């Protein structure tokens, strides 16, 4: 160091910095884009997140986003010692004592003072509608003739045309000025003088006619002895998203809940999702009930019909079910079967489908019978994470269906 010159030299710069700001905009935008990309990759977590399943569209939820962080070599944070320093939150009479719990995993990011180690969980804020938007980029209804196009007509107003007369409130001042300028220019003296008899332009509307279409979902669930709360939650998550999705597609969506053990009955939503299992299993009655309701309330010529059954696939009347599904296919847009199971609890009478997937007896029969019918869809649900792939399976985009056919 220079020992002689001890005078402190400095400069104060007075140039404005405002112009400098905004340089980060591009990187911020790219980061946001990566958040969205990562979120799309995390949809299976999000789709089964209880908060989101039960919240309405406007609610802002904090979504944990995993895997956004740039990777690096690091130590296993769950296997390593860390060092911290107490604050008012942890101190108990001065010193933080051994055994003090600083936080639960997953809570650390909410802590005001610091972050728990190893969290690469970035929290982004989205509304449920934002998430729906992202989901729907991956989902589509099967390409089927839509019914009920002529039934109901809904109208909306759209400003699409310009007229020379109209209410003053609808005056289109920009166009009016342009007209005035053009007219004046034609007369050889360009200027903005407005001739109220010639130049005025008004925005005007047209009535837009939207065909109103309706859909009904038959949510059918096996409530025999083998089905419990976990299965109910999977079914609930699935149907919640299915309803949300169909609401985007159709102006009116009805949902009919049917529970079934040996007998089927139509129930309300609350009962449907909370009834726990008892008794034997005859799924044919559920299909019969659905057909009955269709006869009574949902004329197939004006309703788009989506019956989905959730069962563990151990059933007494498999052959009857196949016949009933065929009947349903005649009147429905899509018929779905979700096989609920616990992985690791397969037993001997499982058989393998043509693609090597293992199905319970009912599923295996469906797989053989309806394999070539693209209006019949089936998927397995073992854990929460399976809901999103299941939805994607049921609502594949057309080109993907063709690609896999």
């Amino acid at each position, binding site marked *: 160091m220079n020992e002689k010159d001890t005078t402190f030299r400095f400069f104060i710069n007075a140039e404005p910095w405002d112009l400098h700001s905004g340089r980060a905009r591009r990187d911020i935008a790219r980061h946001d884009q990566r958040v969205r990309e990562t979120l799309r990759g995390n949809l299976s977590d999000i789709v089964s997140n209880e908060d989101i399943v039960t919240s309405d569209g406007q609610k802002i939820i904090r979504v944990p986003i995993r895997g956004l962080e740039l990777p690096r070599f690091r130590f296993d944070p769950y296997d390593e010692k860390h060092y911290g320093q107490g604050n008012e939150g942890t101190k108990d009479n001065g010193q933080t004592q051994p055994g003090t719990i600083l936080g639960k995993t997953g809570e650390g990011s909410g802590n005001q003072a610091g972050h728990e*180690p190893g969290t690469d969980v970035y929290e982004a804020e989205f509304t449920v509608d934002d998430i729906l938007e992202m989901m729907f980029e991956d989902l589509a209804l099967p390409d089927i003739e839509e019914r009920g196009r002529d039934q109901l007509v809904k109208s909306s107003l759209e400003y699409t045309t310009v007229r020379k007369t109209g209410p003053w409130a609808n005056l289109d001042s920009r166009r009016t000025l342009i007209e005035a300028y053009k007219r004046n220019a034609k007369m050889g003296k360009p200027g903005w003088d407005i001739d109220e008899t010639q130049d005025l332009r008004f925005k005007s509307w047209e009535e837009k006619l939207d065909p109103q279409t309706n859909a009904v979902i038959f949510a059918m669930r096996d409530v025999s002895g083998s089905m419990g709360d976990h299965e109910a939650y999977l079914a609930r998550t699935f149907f919640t998203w299915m309803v949300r999705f169909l609401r985007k597609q159709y102006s009116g969506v009805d949902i009919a809940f049917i529970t079934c053990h040996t007998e089927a009955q139509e129930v309300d939503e609350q009962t449907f999702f909370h009834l726990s299992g008892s008794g034997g299993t005859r799924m044919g009655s559920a299909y019969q009930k659905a057909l009955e309701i269709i006869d009574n309330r949902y004329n197939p010529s004006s309703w788009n019909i989506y019956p989905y059954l959730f069962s563990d696939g151990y059933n007494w009347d498999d052959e009857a079910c196949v016949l009933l599904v065929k009947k349903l296919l005649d009147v429905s847009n899509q018929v779905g079967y979700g096989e609920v199971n616990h992985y690791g609890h397969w037993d001997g009478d499982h058989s393998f489908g043509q693609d090597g997937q293992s199905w319970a007896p009912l599923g295996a029969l469906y797989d053989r019978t309806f394999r070539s019918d693209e209006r019949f869809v089936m998927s397995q649900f073992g854990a929460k994470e399976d809901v999103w792939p299941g939805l994607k399976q049921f609502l594949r985009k057309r080109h993907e269906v063709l690609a896999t056919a």
Partner: protein
Amino acid sequence: MRAEDKAQLEDVAGVMGEVAGQLGLQPPAVSFDVVPAEVMYEIAAYHFPDRFPHWTHGQSYHRQKTGYDHGLQRIYELVVNTEPCHAYLMETNSLTSQKLVIAHVLGHADFFRRNVFFSKSNRFMHTAAAAHAEAINKIEKEHGLEKVEQTLDAALALAMHVDPAREFFRQKSMAEYEEERLRPPDEPTMDYDDIWFMQGKPRKTPDRRRKIPPEPERDLLRFLGESSSILDEWQRDVLAMVGEEYRYFYPNMRTKIMNEGYAAFWHERIMEHPNTRLSPDELIEFQQMHSSVISQGHTFALNPYGVGYKVWKDIEKRWEEPEEEKTWYGESTKRAGGEGLKKVFEVAADYRDSEFLRLFLTEPLVEELDLYEYKFEGDKQKRQGNWVVQQAPWEELRDGLANHLMGLEVPAIAVVDGDFEGRNELLLSHDAGSDLVPLDFDYARRTLGLIHSLWGKPVHLDTIKDDKHLRLTCNDGKAVDVKPF
């Protein structure tokens, strides 16, 4: 900035500089800028006013801003170690805050020039960073945003794996390695040669094979940039630029606690010095700000300002007005005293955080600062459980913390073979014996994928987990196998 504000700051900086000089500080010239909040976040996110674009900077900006918006953190100032030093002050600071911040900047500036770890730093790095930004913009135009981003992703993932001592030690040249390799084994010529053979050990014959790299290479970024056969020239440039910037950042990271503590130690001195002439109201405002900066810990992490400040105060006290102390051998001893600031300057010159705490963190300080060790307890697979404070003797805590700071949490990974099994594959080895902590396999997988993108051939990483030797292999840039070996 209004002219009278500028004049006022000029007065303040002049007075502060004079007081600092009287106290023994020798800060280099400083260029101050008063900037709006948005610009402050930008500089905090990019570290320089002009730096290459990358989405991680956007992420960092977002964190700065949300931290500020939620009232969790507030940046008062930023100082960059350049020639002259550049200091950025927040426009919204009160006059008292500006005074505190200028005093704080003087501490940092003095530290930058005093501490040995900064002695080889490129003090024109801001200019270099701006040149890198320009170069990368040009490369983007030529090769497309996507390719440049992929290369930058990989480079930044490895950015901590540079050689921070590269400027301090001469590197052997390839010719020297070759000469060593080809030199015939020495014939016994000296009278004492037999001593080497006393235990019947045969003379080691040097490995005649030409190795790539000749010695295990910890600077992964440099090795990949220089030795990969698939990179375009512009990619090698990108790797070199990132490496240069991170070597520059290393001393900052290694002296965070010392540097922040030192600045707090000196801003207090300067502010309370009679020649600074603070009004009683200003003094109270200053003391409130000062105590909020140094008091609280961060639960999951240390507060570098607070820890550093207390250790510096303690060093000064122990060397100024010493009390009886025990030596390492348990003998009583007492220093002469009156050497407080001398010791402070000495320590500021020669140490980094790890040694600073290993030598000067005492039992009463551990208690006063309420430092603790904590660990995860629960289901590691599902990552469900609690972070729990551990019972640890204070010496163990001190040494653990010092080790933690020494390695900066960067696993010791080196390239051991760039032509593994003669197939031009890359073999990396993690020195698990010295790190003692297993790698995060999930992160390692993704990082290996990025290394594969730079190497183009299978990449292997040897490590140890739960006493098992494991080899992680990335064959195609996507999947990674883990096999015992």
